[in-house]
């Protein structure tokens, strides 16, 4: 790790002032990803701005039934929150499948949004990685691609986004509140992370001087009947090969509402709009689920080792929708 300056902010205005003065600085929340990346010499901030003292650690009910989540709410706190468990069980469940209890106790909501990929070539300084070094190639292509993207990848980068929480947020139409010296703006979660294209080093739409202050979940009757299914190589403490966040509402055997998002398949949490379109108004049957999965996965591209993810995603979508249909939302 390289030496860095440390400053601590006490309010949002001070934090965004500090970063606008030094756009190469990084905000420190739980540090569960940033500090690792600094140890690996991948993140090299000259200044670290500690924001853990900012008053952004509340979970509040909004008029109309939505929920506002402060950017510094710890993952474990959010997962256990009664409002979240009752209204957005998919979110609680997604968080609890991630990392370990110790990490969830430290990790923040804002930090989770900013997680960087776990591609092993991104982590190896001896490898070419255009996500790490702008303009560099991608050693993952032609190498170990088992964990890599099947949707939205490019010839410059095939990495996936590692977050579970964000997959649930994508399904829930979450919005992100962002603050800077220029003011406040809001971005839908699904527009927050970028696909790699020719510029894989640009991972989100967050500008270098911006701070995530909150995530807002709109009210949704549908969201109460939701689940998260994560498929991985061991029972715990592994990133998703494929994950599915699903909310489903049916009436008289027909799908009247659905939200679906996938994890482990792309550089961003993947909202499955095609599948949703196929499902809405269709009979709530295994056949419909399968057709919807196939519609979403039609553009999927397999690399040398990750072709199984297409089949796995198909099966996991169907199995998760089936479970929501037959068992309801997560308890």
């Amino acid at each position, binding site marked *: *790790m*390289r*030496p860095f300056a440390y400053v601590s902010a006490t309010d949002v205005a001070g934090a965004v002032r500090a970063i606008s003065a030094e756009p190469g600085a990084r905000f420190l929340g739980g540090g569960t990803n940033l500090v690792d990346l600094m140890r690996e*010499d991948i993140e090299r901030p000259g200044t670290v701005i500690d924001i853990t003292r900012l008053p952004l650690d509340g979970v509040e009910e909004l008029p109309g039934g939505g929920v506002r989540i402060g950017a510094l709410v710890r993952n474990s706190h959010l997962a256990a929150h009664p409002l979240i468990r009752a209204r957005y069980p998919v979110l609680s469940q997604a968080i609890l499948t991630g990392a370990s209890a110790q990490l969830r106790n430290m990790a923040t909501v804002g930090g989770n949004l900013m997680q960087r990929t*776990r591609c*092993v*070539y991104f*982590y*190896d*300084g*001896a*490898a070419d990685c255009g996500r790490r070094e702008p303009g560099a190639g991608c050693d993952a292509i*032609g*190498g*170990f691609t*088992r964990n890599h993207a099947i949707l939205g990848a490019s010839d410059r980068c095939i990495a996936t986004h590692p977050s579970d929480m964000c997959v649930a947020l994508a399904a829930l139409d979450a919005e992100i509140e962002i603050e800077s010296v220029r003011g406040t703006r809001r971005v839908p979660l699904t527009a927050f992370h970028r696909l790699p294209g020719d510029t894989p080093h640009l991972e989100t739409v967050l500008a270098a001087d911006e701070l995530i202050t909150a995530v807002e979940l709109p009210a949704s009757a549908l969201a109460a009947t939701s689940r998260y299914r994560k*498929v*991985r*190589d*061991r*029972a*715990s*403490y*592994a990133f998703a*090969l494929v994950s599915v966040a699903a909310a489903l509402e049916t009436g008289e055997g027909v799908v009247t509402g659905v939200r679906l998002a996938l994890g482990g398949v792309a550089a961003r949490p993947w909202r499955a709009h095609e599948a949703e379109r196929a499902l809405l108004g269709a009979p709530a049957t295994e056949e419909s689920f399968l057709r919807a999965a196939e519609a979403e996965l039609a553009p999927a591209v397999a690399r040398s080792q990750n072709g*199984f993810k297409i*089949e*796995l995603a198909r*099966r*996991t979508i*169907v*199995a998760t929708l089936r479970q929501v249909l037959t068992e309801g939302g997560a308890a």
Partner: protein
Amino acid sequence: MTETPVRDRPARERTGRSVGRPIDRVDGPAKTTGTARFSAEYPYPDIAYAALVHATITRGRITGIGAEEALAVPGVLAVITHTNAPPMKPPPPVSVLNLSSLASGSKVNYLNTDEVHWSGQPVAVVVAETQEAAAQAAGLVRVTYQESPATVDFAGEQGNATPQKSNPLQQGEGHKGDAEAALAAAPVSVDLRYTTPPHHHNAMEPHATTAAWDGDRLTVHDGTQNIGWLRTALAQRFGVPAEGVRVIAPFVGGAFGGKTMVWAGTVLTVLAARVTGRAVRMTLTREGVYRTVGGRTPSAQRVALGAGADGRLTALIHTSVTQVGRVGGSPEQVTSQSRHLYDAAAILVQQRIVELDMLSNTVMRAPGESIGTFALEAAVDELACELGMDPIELRMRNEPERNPIDGKRFSHRMLREAYALGAERFGWADRTAPPGSMRDGRWLVGMGVASAYHPSWEMAANVTVRMSADGTVLVRCGFHEMGMGGATAQGQIAADALGVPFEAVRVEYGDSDLPTGPGAGGSAQTASVAASLTKACEKLRRSLLALARRSAGSPLRGARPGEVEARDGGLHRAGHPGSGESYAAILTRAGRPFAEAAVGSDTRAGTVAGQVRFMSKFLMDRRRWMKAACGAQFCEVRVDQDTGEVRVSRWVGAFDVGRVINAKTAASQLRGGIVMGIGMALSEETLVDPRNGRIMNPSLAEYHVPVHADIPPIDVCYLDEPDPTMPLGLVGIGEVGITGAAAAVANAVHHATGRRVRDLPITLDKLL
């Protein structure tokens, strides 16, 4: 993971009150309270810290090293490279007369050469006032290279494999009859290919060394599995007398074979201390361990079995290809168990190796048998399916009376009994045979079984035992405590041999100032120390009796050794309660503060004599007996029918490991082996990029050892029948637990799904 109660067998004929009991490990409190000191925790005034710089090319030469930026980091003391390092002697050629010659992890003379032999080889070491400065500066050393072509693709090189040679410790090719012809003629047969990936040990404690020179005297704290080898190796490399090298390693935070050899980190810490004149500490990063300490070789295996309709094997063929580094490595005896497990009419075993431009492979828990039993025992299961026969029944029909290839006698073998015990505890009779026939909701349920097998070994060990006038006993032997409970077991053995309470015995270990112990490897340490310890206790009893019988006041006056037994803290006439006296009384009357007995000598002549004695006993034993631990592994899995996720839901391991010295630590060892076997079966794989031989997942996040949630309750039981040819009848248990485990999982997965996965690990993509 849930701890299951250890089977507490009714006390059979035991030698005394301590052996066999589930006594808590004596090192437990020190470890749980944090007072146990590991190699990176010894304080030295003015200590400096070191960090490695690793090569980023696969093969070639260093053309330039830019150290300016690194040297500019505040606190940096030195950047040591091949351009400025003092010369070291190269590692010696391997010789059976000097087994420590086996100790070099690789043949590379680090920092004494500009050659790069694998991606990750250390090319510089940075020494600094702090760990942080050393690590930061290591990242700033700029190295340029001229690359050479390299051969790194194991799968692609198999056509170039060459036969593995035999040596006194390892057999190469073996055969009985014409197995290929017998296979071709067999009414029922299978001919199958298996692969296993590279593995790494992932001990909780990464390799760490603290080294301090005082003139030509050297003190080294290093979590080694072989203090004797390390001491000799360091003396040789640095050209100093071995007597001046002290190795201190009372606690080793897990090793599994990864700390048997002397690897770069150890040598370069000692070098850094030599160069800087400071005590130096180096704790490898997890990545550093992967890049500089060898792991388990990958393997490609063929198992072909032919049988009559009655299940009697007519042909057994097991061949393997494994890898070594061009700069060293330990050829792996993959087919070892296939020489001993089945009474086949014709047998062929053959092992071949390829040499790659990669770091040497090394021993890892049950080298050979761990991956060899996977292929053999999975193939036996496939044959059972072909025959329509229960897989246990098939094994029982082929259980040999004598060692199949050469007709040697088994010193002791109770595999039938292990299967009977395990099957009963597991509920094997409830299994319905057709694959896919057992379900639990969305889970497909499968039950699998496989044999465990590991040869038992015994090495030389020097031991002293001292009885003090206060009745306490001190056992001294430089053996190793990597978590197995060695000190506890030896304390139990000494207590019974001398007839004293366990609490009266103290055991000193883990220090080269002590009599030289055996290496901790081959599941041999407990038996090796026990052999010498029981002899030393016998000598000590005799010398104490000699003191007593010469003494007018002793109730033992005139007693002959045959008439006397050790019990109740002293010596007593056998069969005459009260007709004896305590050791304390004997020593006090004689005016002696203590009496001591030794087995083996650490003088130069004594060491040579010890090695000759060991080798001749070893070879003699080998000619007469086939000795091994064995067992039956029973596994139940649940496989998600949508996603192919496999979860192990139950396990029973029934073992024949001779006499068990400590029921608690023994069960932990066996259980730990099974956990590692489950990892091997389902998730562990070192990812080596076939383009450049570079390890791509050198971290505990991406190399998937099992987590607690992957491990069900494990029921470990054993037969506790002594092996008549082994000290106290004990057979090593450190490795047998992992053997057969992966096959039991694979066989259970087949039973659940009807799918055979012959390439480990059994990840869910292989079941979709």
